[in-house]
């Protein structure tokens, strides 16, 4: 009885020891050097695997930083903190790009834009446009079926009561998923410090725009004529604002006859300048 127990224990122990010796030897003989910095960077990255950096996931990006000398400031989800941590791991000084957030370049909600019909098909902007061209009379405007809201991995987008997506700039990381998915290319990534923008994407002539929407850009050019910093400019039938030149004097807002030129995040205007300056100083 006792001897069979001893045999069993002995045999299993021998088997275990033999296998562990083989494994130990193999680990020595077939040792592969893996840069420990890859692991460290992987820990420093947020692990959201959002793809905002252009790589398949955080691990791929960590390998690319070490092996292919890719710039360490590409992580949009983590922001400046992550960039600094990654930079300290690989031993270069931080080069911070300004944080970008998504903005919806359309103000034509269910109240302000003319709707041609009631759409009751598949609740997806892409499907609605493929099937019917969208329910709004404006062929450049937001369809309002919240495809961008569903695709946002950070819950930064929500629909307001009038059926238009709203970006929460505190949560938005600028990963660009909404930009990619929107069939009308309405979300665009702009610097968070940009104060004014022409929130319209319509390339229609002024008359058509007026017929279909009360807040569309009618290409009157008043903003371009009156901007003291010549930050507003026209391309085709749309006005744009150059964020590098704009100083936020808001002349264009006063002159804009339709209100398509809009102040961005007005509630954050008071708190923002200090944060923006601090960020500027860090650069």
């Amino acid at each position, binding site marked *: 009885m006792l001897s*069979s127990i001893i*045999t*069993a224990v002995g*045999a*299993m122990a021998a*088997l*275990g020891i033999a*296998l*562990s010796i*083989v*494994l130990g030897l*193999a*680990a020595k003989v*077939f*040792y*592969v050097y893996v840069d420990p910095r890859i692991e460290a960077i992987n820990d420093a990255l947020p692990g959201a695997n959002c793809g905002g950096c252009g790589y398949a996931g955080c691990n791929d990006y960590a390998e690319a930083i070490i092996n292919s000398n890719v710039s360490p400031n590409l992580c949009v989800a983590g922001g400046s903190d992550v960039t600094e941590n990654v930079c300290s791991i690989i031993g270069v000084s931080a080069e911070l790009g300004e944080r970008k957030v998504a903005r919806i370049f359309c103000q034509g909600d269910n109240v302000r834009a003319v709707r041609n019909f009631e759409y009751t098909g598949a609740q997806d902007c892409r499907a609605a446009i493929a099937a019917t061209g969208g329910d709004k009379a404006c062929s450049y405007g937001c369809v309002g079926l919240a495809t961008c809201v569903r695709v946002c991995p950070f819950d930064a987008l929500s629909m307001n009561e009038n059926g238009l997506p709203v970006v929460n700039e505190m949560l938005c990381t600028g990963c660009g998923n909404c930009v990619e998915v929107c069939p009308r290319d309405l979300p665009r990534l702009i610097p968070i410090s940009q104060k004014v923008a022409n929130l319209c994407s319509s390339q229609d002539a002024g008359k058509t725009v007026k017929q279909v929407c009360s807040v569309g850009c009618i290409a009157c050019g008043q903003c371009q004529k009156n901007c003291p910093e010549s930050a507003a400019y026209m391309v085709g039938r749309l006005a744009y604002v150059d964020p590098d030149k704009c100083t936020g004097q808001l002349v264009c807002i006063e002159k804009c006859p339709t209100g398509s030129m809009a102040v961005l995040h007005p509630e954050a205007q008071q708190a923002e300048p200090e944060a923006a300056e601090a960020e500027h100083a860090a650069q």
Partner: protein
Amino acid sequence: MGDYLLMMVTAIFANNVLLIRFLGLCPFVGVSSNLSSSFGMSGAALFVCVLASAITWNVYHFLLVPLQLEYLRTVSFILVIASLVQLVEIVMQKTAPALYRALGIYLPLITTNCMIFGVAVLNIQEEHSFLDTVIYAFAAALGFCLALIILGGIRERFALGRVPTMMQGFPAALITAGIMALCFYGFIGLGQ
């Protein structure tokens, strides 16, 4: 020769490990969501299954039988298979980095795959010779690959089809697996 052919056909179709014996079902549903992961898992399973069966056969016949420790078969086989997967991983990372990256997570997953263990035990139960063991393990693993790749292909088509919301994902996969198992049941008449 004819015997081996019959044994292979039986192991691949009539006694398919996945669909008739119901061994290794976790990867069958888990990693069959697209074709590339099916291929990765299949390759890793095929490789480890043959190697593990060959080694466990030797462990059984040259260690357990002489010591009259046949009842420790399960414990010792799991020990051997787990260390074997580790060893393969270490060796492969050094000698074939491309293959190592391609197999990725599927290699460690095989440590706990009941198909590998099941085939090793079946070889002992059927009292196969060493050559029989290797051929049987290869054929059984081939059957595993076949079923996994077929399901991977079908599930890839599901992504494009209009599947009702309540049936999306696992429900549809499980029903597909059930129908596939029924189809493979038809092969049982093959040997007669």
